Protein backbone atom coordinates (compact mmCIF):
# COMPACT_ATOMS: atom_id res chain seq x y z
CA UNK A 1 0.00 0.00 0.00
CA UNK A 2 1.34 3.36 -0.95
CA UNK A 3 2.39 5.72 1.75
CA UNK A 4 3.14 9.37 1.59
CA UNK A 5 6.20 10.72 3.36
CA UNK A 6 5.38 12.77 6.41
CA UNK A 7 7.28 16.00 6.88
CA UNK A 8 5.54 17.36 9.97
CA UNK A 9 3.64 15.69 12.75
CA UNK A 10 1.61 17.37 15.49
CA UNK A 11 3.11 17.64 18.99
CA UNK A 12 6.26 15.84 17.84
CA UNK A 13 9.81 17.18 17.82
CA UNK A 14 11.48 14.15 16.25
CA UNK A 15 12.51 14.71 12.63
CA UNK A 16 10.53 12.41 10.37
CA UNK A 17 12.34 10.57 7.57
CA UNK A 18 12.39 13.13 4.80
CA UNK A 19 15.15 12.55 2.27
CA UNK A 20 12.82 11.83 -0.65
CA UNK A 21 12.31 14.74 -2.97
CA UNK A 22 8.61 14.92 -3.72
CA UNK A 23 6.72 17.40 -5.85
CA UNK A 24 4.20 19.53 -4.04
CA UNK A 25 0.69 18.98 -5.34
CA UNK A 26 -2.05 21.58 -5.52
CA UNK A 27 -5.73 21.84 -6.28
CA UNK A 28 -6.66 24.96 -8.19
CA UNK A 29 -10.24 26.19 -7.94
CA UNK A 30 -11.19 28.62 -10.67
CA UNK A 31 -14.06 30.50 -9.07
CA UNK A 32 -14.86 32.20 -12.37
CA UNK A 33 -15.65 28.84 -13.99
CA UNK A 34 -17.72 27.42 -11.13
CA UNK A 35 -21.45 27.09 -11.78
CA UNK A 36 -22.25 25.94 -8.23
CA UNK A 37 -23.60 22.54 -9.27
CA UNK A 38 -22.15 20.86 -6.13
CA UNK A 39 -20.97 17.76 -7.97
CA UNK A 40 -17.78 18.14 -5.93
CA UNK A 41 -19.78 17.99 -2.70
CA UNK A 42 -21.52 14.80 -3.82
CA UNK A 43 -18.34 13.19 -5.13
CA UNK A 44 -16.63 14.03 -1.83
CA UNK A 45 -19.33 12.32 0.26
CA UNK A 46 -19.40 9.36 -2.08
CA UNK A 47 -15.65 8.76 -2.14
CA UNK A 48 -15.09 9.35 1.56
CA UNK A 49 -18.14 7.31 2.63
CA UNK A 50 -19.64 10.16 4.59
CA UNK A 51 -23.33 11.04 4.40
CA UNK A 52 -24.43 14.19 6.15
CA UNK A 53 -27.92 14.24 7.53
CA UNK A 54 -30.56 15.67 5.22
CA UNK A 55 -31.06 19.28 6.25
CA UNK A 56 -33.62 21.97 5.58
CA UNK A 57 -34.04 24.53 2.84
CA UNK A 58 -33.10 27.90 4.29
CA UNK A 59 -34.06 29.81 1.17
CA UNK A 60 -30.48 30.05 -0.05
CA UNK A 61 -28.38 27.87 -2.30
CA UNK A 62 -25.97 26.71 0.40
CA UNK A 63 -26.67 23.16 1.49
CA UNK A 64 -25.73 22.35 4.15
CA UNK A 65 -25.44 25.80 5.69
CA UNK A 66 -21.92 25.19 7.01
CA UNK A 67 -19.14 22.65 6.85
CA UNK A 68 -19.70 19.70 9.17
CA UNK A 69 -17.73 16.63 10.20
CA UNK A 70 -19.68 14.84 7.43
CA UNK A 71 -19.45 17.61 4.82
CA UNK A 72 -15.84 18.39 4.07
CA UNK A 73 -16.50 20.75 1.20
CA UNK A 74 -19.25 23.26 0.59
CA UNK A 75 -20.24 25.71 -2.12
CA UNK A 76 -20.62 29.18 -0.65
CA UNK A 77 -22.78 31.52 -2.72
CA UNK A 78 -22.46 35.29 -2.67
CA UNK A 79 -24.67 37.69 -4.58
CA UNK A 80 -22.28 40.46 -5.51
CA UNK A 81 -23.50 43.71 -7.01
CA UNK A 82 -21.07 45.01 -9.57
CA UNK A 83 -20.31 48.72 -9.99
CA UNK A 84 -22.72 48.93 -12.94
CA UNK A 85 -25.48 47.46 -10.79
CA UNK A 86 -25.45 44.00 -12.34
CA UNK A 87 -25.69 40.91 -10.19
CA UNK A 88 -22.69 38.65 -10.12
CA UNK A 89 -22.62 35.22 -8.56
CA UNK A 90 -19.46 34.56 -6.58
CA UNK A 91 -19.45 30.84 -5.87
CA UNK A 92 -16.58 29.57 -3.79
CA UNK A 93 -15.85 25.95 -3.02
CA UNK A 94 -14.93 26.07 0.66
CA UNK A 95 -12.85 23.42 2.37
CA UNK A 96 -9.39 22.76 3.71
CA UNK A 97 -6.72 24.89 2.05
CA UNK A 98 -3.86 22.53 2.95
CA UNK A 99 -1.59 25.35 4.14
CA UNK A 100 2.16 24.98 3.83
CA UNK A 101 2.32 26.21 7.44
CA UNK A 102 -0.79 24.59 8.90
CA UNK A 103 -2.22 26.34 11.95
CA UNK A 104 -4.15 23.20 12.90
CA UNK A 105 -0.97 21.15 13.06
CA UNK A 106 0.81 23.81 15.12
CA UNK A 107 -2.08 24.01 17.57
CA UNK A 108 -2.66 20.26 17.90
CA UNK A 109 -1.49 18.85 21.25
CA UNK A 110 -1.92 15.17 20.36
CA UNK A 111 1.11 13.48 18.79
CA UNK A 112 0.38 12.27 15.29
CA UNK A 113 -3.23 13.45 15.12
CA UNK A 114 -2.33 15.88 12.34
CA UNK A 115 0.39 15.21 9.83
CA UNK A 116 1.72 17.06 6.84
CA UNK A 117 2.84 14.99 3.89
CA UNK A 118 5.81 15.82 1.73
CA UNK A 119 3.51 16.61 -1.20
CA UNK A 120 1.74 19.27 0.87
CA UNK A 121 -1.37 17.41 2.00
CA UNK A 122 -2.36 18.08 5.60
CA UNK A 123 -4.15 15.04 6.94
CA UNK A 124 -5.93 14.25 10.20
CA UNK A 125 -5.42 10.86 11.83
CA UNK A 126 -8.56 10.41 13.88
CA UNK A 127 -7.18 7.44 15.84
CA UNK A 128 -4.79 9.87 17.57
CA UNK A 129 -7.31 12.73 17.84
CA UNK A 130 -8.40 13.62 21.36
CA UNK A 131 -11.23 15.89 20.18
CA UNK A 132 -9.94 19.01 21.95
CA UNK A 133 -10.82 21.31 19.05
CA UNK A 134 -7.54 23.26 19.11
CA UNK A 135 -7.21 22.65 15.35
CA UNK A 136 -10.34 24.76 14.83
CA UNK A 137 -8.78 27.58 16.86
CA UNK A 138 -5.55 27.22 14.93
CA UNK A 139 -7.19 27.24 11.48
CA UNK A 140 -7.28 30.68 9.83
CA UNK A 141 -10.03 29.44 7.50
CA UNK A 142 -12.31 27.83 10.14
CA UNK A 143 -12.37 24.42 8.46
CA UNK A 144 -12.08 21.45 10.87
CA UNK A 145 -15.23 20.19 12.56
CA UNK A 146 -15.66 17.86 15.53
CA UNK A 147 -17.99 14.95 14.87
CA UNK A 148 -20.82 14.42 17.31
CA UNK A 149 -20.58 10.68 16.67
CA UNK A 150 -17.03 10.02 17.82
CA UNK A 151 -15.89 13.48 19.06
CA UNK A 152 -12.97 13.59 16.67
CA UNK A 153 -11.97 16.27 14.19
CA UNK A 154 -12.56 15.80 10.47
CA UNK A 155 -11.83 17.80 7.34
CA UNK A 156 -10.90 17.43 3.66
CA UNK A 157 -7.98 15.03 3.17
CA UNK A 158 -7.35 16.22 -0.41
CA UNK A 159 -8.23 12.55 -1.03
CA UNK A 160 -4.79 11.50 0.25
CA UNK A 161 -5.84 7.88 -0.40
CA UNK A 162 -6.35 8.68 -4.08
CA UNK A 163 -3.33 10.96 -4.44
CA UNK A 164 -1.12 8.30 -2.78
CA UNK A 165 -1.90 5.88 -5.62
CA UNK A 166 -1.61 8.50 -8.35
CA UNK A 167 -5.20 9.62 -8.75
CA UNK A 168 -6.67 13.11 -8.52
CA UNK A 169 -9.06 14.01 -5.68
CA UNK A 170 -12.69 12.98 -6.21
CA UNK A 171 -13.94 16.59 -6.46
CA UNK A 172 -11.38 17.36 -9.16
CA UNK A 173 -12.34 14.36 -11.26
CA UNK A 174 -16.05 15.06 -11.18
CA UNK A 175 -16.07 18.82 -11.82
CA UNK A 176 -18.11 19.20 -15.06
CA UNK A 177 -16.87 22.70 -15.93
CA UNK A 178 -13.22 22.06 -15.20
CA UNK A 179 -13.28 24.71 -12.48
CA UNK A 180 -11.27 22.40 -10.21
CA UNK A 181 -7.95 21.17 -11.56
CA UNK A 182 -5.15 19.23 -9.94
CA UNK A 183 -1.44 18.80 -10.54
CA UNK A 184 1.89 19.87 -9.15
CA UNK A 185 1.81 23.26 -7.48
CA UNK A 186 4.09 24.69 -10.17
CA UNK A 187 1.81 23.44 -12.98
CA UNK A 188 -1.21 24.86 -11.19
CA UNK A 189 0.45 28.27 -10.93
CA UNK A 190 1.11 28.20 -14.68
CA UNK A 191 -2.50 27.19 -15.32
CA UNK A 192 -3.69 29.98 -13.03
CA UNK A 193 -1.57 32.54 -14.86
CA UNK A 194 -3.24 31.60 -18.14
CA UNK A 195 -6.66 31.90 -16.54
CA UNK A 196 -5.79 35.29 -15.06
CA UNK A 197 -4.64 36.62 -18.45
CA UNK A 198 -7.94 35.42 -19.92
CA UNK A 199 -9.99 37.00 -17.14
CA UNK A 200 -8.14 40.30 -17.45
CA UNK A 201 -8.86 40.33 -21.18
CA UNK A 202 -12.55 39.96 -20.30
CA UNK A 203 -12.53 43.06 -18.13
CA UNK A 204 -11.63 41.58 -14.74
CA UNK A 205 -8.74 43.93 -14.03
CA UNK A 206 -8.15 42.57 -10.55
CA UNK A 207 -8.18 38.90 -11.40
CA UNK A 208 -5.50 37.00 -9.55
CA UNK A 209 -4.34 33.92 -7.71
CA UNK A 210 -5.16 33.34 -4.04
CA UNK A 211 -2.15 31.61 -2.49
CA UNK A 212 -1.77 33.57 0.76
CA UNK A 213 1.74 34.09 2.17
CA UNK A 214 0.45 34.41 5.73
CA UNK A 215 0.18 30.62 5.95
CA UNK A 216 3.20 29.94 3.76
CA UNK A 217 1.07 29.47 0.65
CA UNK A 218 -1.62 26.85 0.25
CA UNK A 219 -2.02 23.61 -1.66
CA UNK A 220 -5.58 24.55 -2.51
CA UNK A 221 -5.53 27.78 -4.47
CA UNK A 222 -8.24 29.95 -5.96
CA UNK A 223 -8.37 31.95 -9.16
CA UNK A 224 -10.49 34.94 -8.15
CA UNK A 225 -11.92 37.55 -10.50
CA UNK A 226 -11.69 40.03 -7.62
CA UNK A 227 -8.37 38.99 -6.11
CA UNK A 228 -8.00 42.47 -4.58
CA UNK A 229 -10.97 41.73 -2.30
CA UNK A 230 -11.00 38.02 -1.34
CA UNK A 231 -13.45 38.78 1.49
CA UNK A 232 -16.14 39.32 -1.16
CA UNK A 233 -16.20 35.55 -1.57
CA UNK A 234 -18.22 34.78 1.55
CA UNK A 235 -15.56 36.00 3.94
CA UNK A 236 -12.47 34.40 2.46
CA UNK A 237 -9.73 35.97 4.66
CA UNK A 238 -7.92 38.82 2.89
CA UNK A 239 -4.67 38.04 4.72
CA UNK A 240 -5.03 34.79 6.68
CA UNK A 241 -2.60 34.27 9.55
CA UNK A 242 -2.48 31.71 12.30
CA UNK A 243 -3.99 33.14 15.48
CA UNK A 244 -1.26 34.70 17.69
CA UNK A 245 -2.74 32.71 20.58
CA UNK A 246 -1.40 29.52 18.96
CA UNK A 247 2.21 30.74 18.85
CA UNK A 248 1.82 32.28 22.31
CA UNK A 249 0.55 28.99 23.72
CA UNK A 250 2.83 26.67 21.79
CA UNK A 251 5.81 29.01 21.41
CA UNK A 252 6.28 30.58 24.86
CA UNK A 253 3.73 29.30 27.35
CA UNK A 254 4.31 25.61 26.73
CA UNK A 255 8.10 25.50 27.31
CA UNK A 256 7.78 27.93 30.20
CA UNK A 257 5.16 25.87 31.96
CA UNK A 258 7.09 22.68 31.25
CA UNK A 259 10.11 24.38 32.82
CA UNK A 260 8.02 25.38 35.84
CA UNK A 261 6.72 21.83 36.19
CA UNK A 262 10.23 20.41 35.97
CA UNK A 263 11.53 22.96 38.48
CA UNK A 264 8.77 22.06 40.93
CA UNK A 265 9.58 18.36 40.66
CA UNK A 266 13.31 19.05 41.03
CA UNK A 267 12.76 21.34 44.01
CA UNK A 268 10.62 18.68 45.66
CA UNK A 269 13.29 16.06 45.11
CA UNK A 270 16.08 18.20 46.56
CA UNK A 271 13.90 19.18 49.49
CA UNK A 272 13.29 15.50 50.19
CA UNK A 273 16.99 14.67 49.94
CA UNK A 274 18.32 17.65 51.93
CA UNK A 275 15.65 18.17 54.57
CA UNK A 276 13.52 15.05 54.33
CA UNK A 277 9.91 14.58 55.28
CA UNK A 278 8.51 16.43 58.25
CA UNK A 279 7.85 13.98 61.08
CA UNK A 280 6.01 14.77 64.31
CA UNK A 281 7.95 13.35 67.24
CA UNK A 282 6.46 12.56 70.64
CA UNK A 283 8.68 15.23 72.10
CA UNK A 284 7.18 17.85 69.75
CA UNK A 285 3.64 16.85 70.63
CA UNK A 286 4.33 17.08 74.31
CA UNK A 287 5.85 20.53 73.90
CA UNK A 288 2.88 21.59 71.82
CA UNK A 289 0.43 20.32 74.43
CA UNK A 290 2.27 22.11 77.16
CA UNK A 291 2.32 25.31 75.21
CA UNK A 292 -1.47 25.19 74.77
CA UNK A 293 -2.34 24.10 78.35
CA UNK A 294 0.33 25.54 80.66
CA UNK A 295 -1.37 24.26 83.90
CA UNK A 296 -1.57 20.62 82.88
CA UNK A 297 0.84 17.97 84.04
CA UNK A 298 3.50 16.52 81.77
CA UNK A 299 1.50 13.34 81.04
CA UNK A 300 -1.83 14.70 79.96
CA UNK A 301 -4.73 12.90 78.32
CA UNK A 302 -3.61 14.31 74.96
CA UNK A 303 -0.58 12.09 74.70
CA UNK A 304 -0.50 8.32 74.32
CA UNK A 305 -1.34 6.45 77.52
CA UNK A 306 1.68 4.85 79.18
CA UNK A 307 0.10 1.41 79.37
CA UNK A 308 -1.22 -0.19 76.19
CA UNK A 309 -4.77 -1.39 76.68
CA UNK A 310 -6.58 -3.61 74.22
CA UNK A 311 -9.58 -2.03 72.61
CA UNK A 312 -12.64 -3.92 73.88
CA UNK A 313 -13.96 -4.20 70.35
CA UNK A 314 -10.89 -6.18 69.27
CA UNK A 315 -11.37 -9.90 69.82
CA UNK A 316 -8.25 -11.99 69.99
CA UNK A 317 -8.20 -15.74 69.54
CA UNK A 318 -5.47 -18.06 70.78
CA UNK A 319 -6.03 -21.72 69.80
CA UNK A 320 -3.49 -22.87 72.42
CA UNK A 321 -5.68 -21.65 75.28
CA UNK A 322 -8.45 -24.02 76.32
CA UNK A 323 -11.07 -21.30 76.30
CA UNK A 324 -9.63 -19.78 73.14
CA UNK A 325 -8.99 -16.37 74.72
CA UNK A 326 -5.61 -14.88 74.03
Amino acid at each position, binding site marked *: *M*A*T*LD*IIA*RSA*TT*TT*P*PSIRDMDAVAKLIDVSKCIG*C*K*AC*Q*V*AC*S*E*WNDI*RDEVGHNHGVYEAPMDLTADSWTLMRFTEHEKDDGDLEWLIRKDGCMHCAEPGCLKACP*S*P*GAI*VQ*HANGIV*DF*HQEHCIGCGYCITGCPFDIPRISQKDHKAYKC*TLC*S*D*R*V*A*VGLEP*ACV*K*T*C*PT*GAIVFGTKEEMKVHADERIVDLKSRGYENAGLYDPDGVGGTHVMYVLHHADKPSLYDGLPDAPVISPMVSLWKGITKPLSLLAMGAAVLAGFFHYVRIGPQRVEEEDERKEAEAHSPGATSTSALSEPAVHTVDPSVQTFDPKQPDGRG
Partner: protein
Amino acid sequence: MDMNRRQFFKVAGIGLGGSSLAALGMAPTPAFAEQVRHFKLTHTKETRNTCPYCSVGCGLIMYSMGDEGKNVAQNIIHIEGDADHPVNRGTLCPKGAGLLDFIHSPNRLKYPEVRKPGSNEWTRISWDDAMDRIARLVKDDRDANFIAENEKGETVNRLLTIGFLAASASSNETGYITHKVVRNLGLLGFDNQARV
Protein backbone atom coordinates in the same frame (compact mmCIF):
# COMPACT_ATOMS: atom_id res chain seq x y z
CA MET B 1 14.73 -11.86 45.98
CA ASP B 2 15.16 -10.24 49.34
CA MET B 3 13.00 -7.22 49.77
CA ASN B 4 11.74 -5.57 52.87
CA ARG B 5 8.47 -3.70 53.22
CA ARG B 6 10.06 -0.31 52.54
CA GLN B 7 11.82 -1.47 49.36
CA PHE B 8 8.64 -3.08 48.11
CA PHE B 9 6.74 0.20 48.47
CA LYS B 10 9.51 2.05 46.65
CA VAL B 11 9.46 -0.34 43.69
CA ALA B 12 5.69 -0.29 43.55
CA GLY B 13 5.62 3.51 43.72
CA ILE B 14 8.16 3.93 40.91
CA GLY B 15 6.21 1.48 38.78
CA LEU B 16 2.94 3.32 39.37
CA GLY B 17 4.53 6.72 38.69
CA GLY B 18 6.19 5.54 35.49
CA SER B 19 3.10 3.97 34.05
CA SER B 20 1.03 7.02 34.98
CA LEU B 21 3.46 9.30 33.14
CA ALA B 22 3.31 7.02 30.09
CA ALA B 23 -0.48 7.06 30.24
CA LEU B 24 -0.39 10.87 30.39
CA GLY B 25 1.36 10.93 27.02
CA MET B 26 4.96 11.34 28.15
CA ALA B 27 5.95 8.03 26.60
CA PRO B 28 8.45 8.11 23.73
CA THR B 29 6.84 8.85 20.38
CA PRO B 30 6.04 5.77 18.30
CA ALA B 31 7.62 5.06 14.95
CA PHE B 32 6.29 6.91 11.92
CA ALA B 33 3.89 4.23 10.85
CA GLU B 34 0.97 6.44 9.90
CA GLN B 35 -0.49 5.74 6.53
CA VAL B 36 -3.10 7.35 4.45
CA ARG B 37 -6.47 5.65 4.23
CA HIS B 38 -6.22 2.48 2.19
CA PHE B 39 -7.26 2.85 -1.43
CA LYS B 40 -10.63 1.18 -1.52
CA LEU B 41 -10.73 0.20 -5.21
CA THR B 42 -7.53 -1.85 -5.44
CA HIS B 43 -9.09 -5.17 -6.39
CA THR B 44 -12.61 -4.19 -7.32
CA LYS B 45 -14.23 -5.31 -10.56
CA GLU B 46 -14.73 -2.42 -12.97
CA THR B 47 -17.81 -2.32 -15.18
CA ARG B 48 -18.54 0.37 -17.75
CA ASN B 49 -22.01 1.81 -18.05
CA THR B 50 -23.89 4.92 -19.06
CA CYS B 51 -25.45 7.30 -16.58
CA PRO B 52 -29.24 6.75 -16.52
CA TYR B 53 -30.22 10.34 -15.81
CA CYS B 54 -30.14 12.79 -18.69
CA SER B 55 -29.60 12.78 -22.41
CA VAL B 56 -25.94 13.75 -22.17
CA GLY B 57 -25.24 10.06 -21.53
CA CYS B 58 -22.06 10.29 -19.46
CA GLY B 59 -19.82 7.25 -19.23
CA LEU B 60 -19.44 5.62 -15.85
CA ILE B 61 -17.24 3.06 -14.24
CA MET B 62 -18.94 1.00 -11.55
CA TYR B 63 -16.60 -0.59 -9.03
CA SER B 64 -17.90 -3.69 -7.31
CA MET B 65 -16.27 -5.69 -4.58
CA GLY B 66 -15.04 -9.18 -5.12
CA ASP B 67 -13.49 -10.78 -8.20
CA GLU B 68 -16.61 -12.47 -9.58
CA GLY B 69 -15.68 -15.75 -7.89
CA LYS B 70 -18.42 -18.32 -7.56
CA ASN B 71 -18.98 -17.56 -3.90
CA VAL B 72 -18.94 -13.78 -4.12
CA ALA B 73 -22.02 -11.59 -4.18
CA GLN B 74 -21.10 -8.59 -6.27
CA ASN B 75 -21.95 -5.28 -4.67
CA ILE B 76 -21.25 -1.90 -6.24
CA ILE B 77 -19.20 0.15 -3.78
CA HIS B 78 -18.21 3.13 -5.89
CA ILE B 79 -19.09 4.88 -9.14
CA GLU B 80 -17.15 7.54 -10.90
CA GLY B 81 -16.88 9.04 -14.35
CA ASP B 82 -15.15 7.11 -17.12
CA ALA B 83 -12.08 9.13 -18.07
CA ASP B 84 -11.95 7.38 -21.47
CA HIS B 85 -15.53 8.26 -22.37
CA PRO B 86 -15.64 11.00 -25.03
CA VAL B 87 -18.77 12.61 -23.64
CA ASN B 88 -17.72 13.42 -20.10
CA ARG B 89 -14.02 12.42 -19.92
CA GLY B 90 -14.37 11.40 -16.29
CA THR B 91 -16.57 14.21 -15.04
CA LEU B 92 -20.03 13.80 -13.56
CA CYS B 93 -22.71 16.22 -12.43
CA PRO B 94 -24.03 16.05 -8.84
CA LYS B 95 -26.74 13.58 -9.85
CA GLY B 96 -24.31 11.28 -11.61
CA ALA B 97 -21.77 11.63 -8.84
CA GLY B 98 -24.40 10.38 -6.38
CA LEU B 99 -25.44 7.32 -8.39
CA LEU B 100 -24.19 4.92 -5.71
CA ASP B 101 -27.03 5.94 -3.42
CA PHE B 102 -29.47 5.76 -6.35
CA ILE B 103 -28.49 2.12 -6.94
CA HIS B 104 -28.76 1.18 -3.29
CA SER B 105 -31.91 3.20 -2.65
CA PRO B 106 -34.71 1.18 -1.04
CA ASN B 107 -37.11 3.10 -3.31
CA ARG B 108 -35.45 2.04 -6.53
CA LEU B 109 -37.80 0.41 -9.07
CA LYS B 110 -36.39 -3.00 -9.93
CA TYR B 111 -39.31 -4.81 -11.60
CA PRO B 112 -42.65 -4.04 -13.32
CA GLU B 113 -45.43 -3.02 -10.99
CA VAL B 114 -49.08 -2.34 -11.70
CA ARG B 115 -51.61 -0.20 -9.90
CA LYS B 116 -54.99 -1.40 -11.10
CA PRO B 117 -57.95 0.98 -11.45
CA GLY B 118 -59.50 1.67 -8.04
CA SER B 119 -56.53 0.37 -6.15
CA ASN B 120 -54.03 2.44 -4.24
CA GLU B 121 -51.39 -0.26 -4.09
CA TRP B 122 -48.67 -1.24 -6.49
CA THR B 123 -48.37 -4.97 -7.06
CA ARG B 124 -45.43 -6.72 -8.60
CA ILE B 125 -45.97 -8.54 -11.90
CA SER B 126 -43.65 -10.47 -14.17
CA TRP B 127 -42.11 -8.92 -17.28
CA ASP B 128 -44.20 -11.27 -19.45
CA ASP B 129 -47.39 -10.21 -17.72
CA ALA B 130 -46.39 -6.59 -18.00
CA MET B 131 -45.73 -6.81 -21.74
CA ASP B 132 -48.95 -8.72 -22.33
CA ARG B 133 -50.92 -6.24 -20.26
CA ILE B 134 -49.43 -3.24 -22.02
CA ALA B 135 -50.05 -4.76 -25.47
CA ARG B 136 -53.62 -5.68 -24.58
CA LEU B 137 -54.50 -2.28 -23.16
CA VAL B 138 -52.79 -0.37 -25.97
CA LYS B 139 -54.59 -2.48 -28.56
CA ASP B 140 -57.98 -2.04 -26.87
CA ASP B 141 -57.49 1.69 -26.49
CA ARG B 142 -56.24 2.11 -30.04
CA ASP B 143 -59.17 0.10 -31.44
CA ALA B 144 -61.60 2.27 -29.51
CA ASN B 145 -60.06 5.72 -30.01
CA PHE B 146 -58.03 5.66 -33.23
CA ILE B 147 -58.86 8.61 -35.48
CA ALA B 148 -58.30 7.75 -39.11
CA GLU B 149 -59.85 10.87 -40.64
CA ASN B 150 -60.65 14.32 -39.36
CA GLU B 151 -63.92 16.22 -39.89
CA LYS B 152 -62.81 17.39 -43.31
CA GLY B 153 -62.26 13.79 -44.40
CA GLU B 154 -58.49 14.14 -44.45
CA THR B 155 -56.46 11.10 -43.38
CA VAL B 156 -54.74 11.84 -40.06
CA ASN B 157 -54.24 8.40 -38.45
CA ARG B 158 -53.79 9.77 -34.96
CA LEU B 159 -54.20 8.29 -31.51
CA LEU B 160 -54.61 11.00 -28.87
CA THR B 161 -55.54 8.90 -25.83
CA ILE B 162 -52.09 7.45 -25.19
CA GLY B 163 -48.87 9.24 -24.37
CA PHE B 164 -45.41 7.77 -24.51
CA LEU B 165 -42.33 8.70 -22.54
CA ALA B 166 -39.03 7.06 -23.46
CA ALA B 167 -35.76 6.79 -21.63
CA SER B 168 -32.86 9.14 -21.99
CA ALA B 169 -29.83 6.91 -22.08
CA SER B 170 -30.62 5.61 -25.55
CA SER B 171 -28.36 5.21 -28.52
CA ASN B 172 -29.22 6.75 -31.87
CA GLU B 173 -30.44 3.37 -33.06
CA THR B 174 -32.68 2.85 -30.04
CA GLY B 175 -34.07 6.32 -30.56
CA TYR B 176 -34.81 5.59 -34.22
CA ILE B 177 -36.67 2.37 -33.41
CA THR B 178 -38.56 4.02 -30.54
CA HIS B 179 -39.66 6.79 -32.87
CA LYS B 180 -40.84 4.35 -35.53
CA VAL B 181 -42.83 2.22 -33.07
CA VAL B 182 -44.52 5.20 -31.47
CA ARG B 183 -45.38 6.98 -34.71
CA ASN B 184 -46.66 3.73 -36.26
CA LEU B 185 -49.21 3.55 -33.47
CA GLY B 186 -50.28 7.07 -34.37
CA LEU B 187 -49.18 8.59 -31.06
CA LEU B 188 -48.66 12.32 -30.95
CA GLY B 189 -48.05 12.71 -27.23
CA PHE B 190 -44.48 11.48 -27.29
CA ASP B 191 -41.52 12.80 -25.42
CA ASN B 192 -38.14 11.67 -24.39
CA GLN B 193 -35.44 13.29 -22.40
CA ALA B 194 -33.10 12.46 -25.26
CA ARG B 195 -35.47 14.37 -27.63
CA VAL B 196 -35.48 11.73 -30.35
